[in-house]
């Protein structure tokens, strides 16, 4: 093998390694960006929800909820128990509405 062909092989090997390395960096960067984008938006919504929860977590809200709960608890439990009972006994099969 000549010096010329050896140099060509070295160049080829360098290009191969560099190319593979750069593509690995690119895929890491892409995944990081995608993950960050998802986390940022979900976290932003999460912050809004927690803020709303704090606003709702007042004495008035609790009183309202308790009053409403008192009015509807029996009815709700009846509904829930009725539905669970429907499912857990031998319910008639239904077809989902697509």
């Amino acid at each position: 093998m000549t010096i010329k062909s050896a140099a060509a092989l070295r160049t080829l090997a360098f290009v191969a390694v560099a190319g593979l390395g750069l593509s690995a960096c690119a895929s890491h960067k892409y995944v990081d960006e995608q993950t960050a984008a998802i986390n940022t938006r979900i976290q932003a919504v999460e912050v809004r929800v927690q803020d709303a929860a704090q606003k709702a977590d007042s004495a008035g809200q609790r009183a309202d909820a308790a009053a409403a709960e008192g009015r509807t608890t029996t009815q709700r439990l009846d509904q829930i128990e009725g539905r669970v009972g429907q499912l857990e006994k031998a319910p008639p099969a239904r077809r989902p509405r697509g």
Partner: protein
Amino acid sequence: MIDGANPIRALFTSLFVAALWLGPASAPAFAQPVIVEESSPPAGHRPPTVADASDAEEVDEIDPSLSVSDAVIGVAGWAISTGDHRDLPFAIIDKRAAQILVFDETGKLRGMAPVLLGSATGDHSAPGVGDRELADIPMEDRTTPAGRFYASYGPAIGVPEALWIDYATAVSIHPIVPSAEGKRRKRWLASPESDDNRVTHGCVNVSPDFYRRIVRPILGRRSIFYVLPEVAELREAIPGFAPPRRAQRNAQRRR
């Protein structure tokens, strides 16, 4: 002239180094939930075997140009604050925006995605609609009812299992099925407009991936669904719900 083996050795060494370098990149970038699929349909009413979703799993399929409405945020905050979700995982469906948000039992947001909904506008189900064949449901009765629902898996005709939102009116949440119609539904689901998401007979459709990664593992055992109204008042549809401003005014009056 130099020894011909040296360049070849250099090439193999370089490739070996490259392989070592690329090793960590082949590890999975996202934690995937482990879902134990059943080989046969569940017997009777028993819920399917669903492994716990990974704590790290968060999925956002909503178009980046869209946002989450204040109504959804208000109901989520109220449900968490008052404990209305009874320590169960819960979902909020915004019919106007055609979106679903899924929270785990601690109130942590785990996923949000577009949904397909009943083609008719309205918040109530027509009497007896759950007993009708799909083709026999009049266009005006193809609504997705609003309200607070206790959801769980149950028996169904045509599919091994269904996650029923409201069994009495045959409303369930399920993935888009692979078919010609399913391909059209996927397109409608993917578009940012909400008008073309009103195509079902009343059921709620999500993407197969969102169903597999979020709906089934998180909501699959027992869960609460809050389906926000599009015509009726929020307080009328969700029992006990009070907007924060009203609660604050009440608190100020008591002082």
